[in-house]
């Protein structure tokens, strides 16, 4: 099975035999890879019935749960990793969810589309329209991505909240890992591993 490039970066960050909680787990591919490669045990939270069905058919533990309703049912520090892969921007209150994720998990792994990528900037600057692309395929009126942010935005939030960035990875639109001097311009997807500074 070929593994998605963005999942590869996340899998590399996870220690073997960890307990993971994947918010917005989709069809459960990441959890399946984590179980196979890292013997990780965990659950995915998902709302979409079709995706929940796929999880069940894949033998992935999936819980029908609206992340926007909070994580109050999950005890403090009960998971090694709480992951949110390309779903943060679809939440109603991403900042509150991040707080909750850090309460429930020892480490939090986040990936999100960087809205300051040069193509997005160019789209907006030249066309004067909300950018539509392969990674952001929706029109403004129907997009689930209601809280898009940039790398700079995210790091500013981490700083103001006192989150410690343990690691950062960047990926360009071709799925290649990026070591750019201008990440906020060239990275199409950003990956962060954060903890709460204690």
């Amino acid at each position, binding site marked *: 099975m070929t593994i998605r490039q963005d999942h590869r970066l996340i899998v590399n960050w996870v220690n073997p035999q960890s*307990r993971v909680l994947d918010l917005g787990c989709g069809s459960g591919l990441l959890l399946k890879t984590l179980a196979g490669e890292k013997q990780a*045990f965990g*659950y995915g939270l998902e709302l979409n*019935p079709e995706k*929940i*069905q796929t*999880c*069940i*058919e894949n*033998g*992935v*533990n*999936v*819980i*029908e*749960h609206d992340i926007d309703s909070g994580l109050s*049912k*999950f*005890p403090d520090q*009960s998971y090694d990793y709480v992951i949110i892969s390309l779903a943060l921007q679809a939440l109603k209150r991403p900042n509150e969810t991040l707080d909750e994720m850090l309460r429930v998990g020892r480490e939090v792994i986040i990936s999100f589309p960087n809205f300051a990528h040069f193509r997005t900037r160019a789209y907006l600057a030249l066309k004067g329209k909300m950018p539509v692309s392969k990674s952001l395929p929706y029109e403004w009126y129907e997009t689930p991505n209601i809280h898009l942010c940039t790398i700079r935005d995210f790091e500013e939030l981490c700083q103001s909240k006192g989150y410690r960035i343990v690691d950062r990875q960047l990926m360009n639109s071709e799925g290649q890992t990026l070591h750019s001097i201008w990440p906020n311009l060239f990275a199409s997807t950003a990956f962060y591993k954060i903890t709460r500074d204690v």
Partner: protein
Amino acid sequence: MNAHERHLAADNIGLVTPKRFHCDTPLKLTSGRELPSFELVYETYGVLNNKGSNAVLICHALSGSHHAAGFHAPEDKKAGWWDGFIGPGKVIDTNKFFVVCPNNIGSCYGSTGPTSLKPQPPITEADDTDAKAKVKTKEWGADFPLITIKDWVASQKRLMDHLGINQWAAVVGGSMGGMQAMQWAIDYPEQLRHAAVIAAAPKLSAQNIAFNEVARQAIITDPEFFAGQYKDHDSAPKRGLSLARMLAHITYLSDEAMREKFGRDLRNEKIHFGYDVEFQVESYLRYQGQMFSQSFDANTYLILTKCLDYFDPASEYGDDLAKAFERSQCRFFVASFTTDWRFSPARSREIVDALMKVHKPVSYLEVQARQGHDSFLLNVPRYKKAFEGFMNMVDIL
């Protein structure tokens, strides 16, 4: 295909004959009392494989029976209570699984219960023939002991041993059946690989118990009840049992489903300002109550509602449900229905949260369905598909 040929359909079990299991080893009950011996009537569908690894236990709900699928006779109007789910190629696929569905102790459908004959103390030689003549075989009636879900599971375990099954591939049930599946995972963690817990709750709420109590009072205060020994009086508390069923029936349906089915429709064209049936819903409930009271035993109804009230597996583990599940080894499937207000989705979520707390494999879905608690018996496509997906993942080794 006409109604008399439904048993011939390719996805139907066909004609089935119930079997009996007699157990002479006394069964010690949670209440402290003991059944010196007992019988379970049960049905099986499909074939047990050589390794005995494809057996699925179906646990029935309150008024259910061992007749879960197929037909007893070609002229039967109704198939088994879960016929839509059990059969060749169905959710619980009898081409793959050997399905076992016992009737529980305390029931009135054939397993040992209040309507069974009570074992009499042996008559000694010293007794004179007069005394011998006086000893009449008699039904248990109100003397039948109160039963718990734990007792049921213990009796099902005896049946399992009798059938030569070492481990269930899955234990499956809705409502009170789901409670039995949970109890299996707690009491016999090594004896099942999967558990499906549908429209259930980890224990009854005060409101649930309250409804049960009103139902019991309807029966007990019926002048025909005679302290449970109504058979001695050639009588039965049918009015009370009918009321109990009417009340329970309301809790099985959702407000939405009742509105859709009956609305405020009148049976005749206008209201008559009287207490006879005026609204369609009244007619329906009365009919349901009457039918039930003619076929069900009142003492059984009392025992079964008490059995529900007593269910609280966490109580043996310091009221910590997560701790109760700690030793369980099976994979769980938990499903609830949005309009179920008897055992609402929040109750299923309590089960799921407890399982997650002790890191047990579980998948959970909250299905949009209009039919309330009864949804678990019905053809709700999303539920059926997910349930099927889960059962397909059940390995038979």
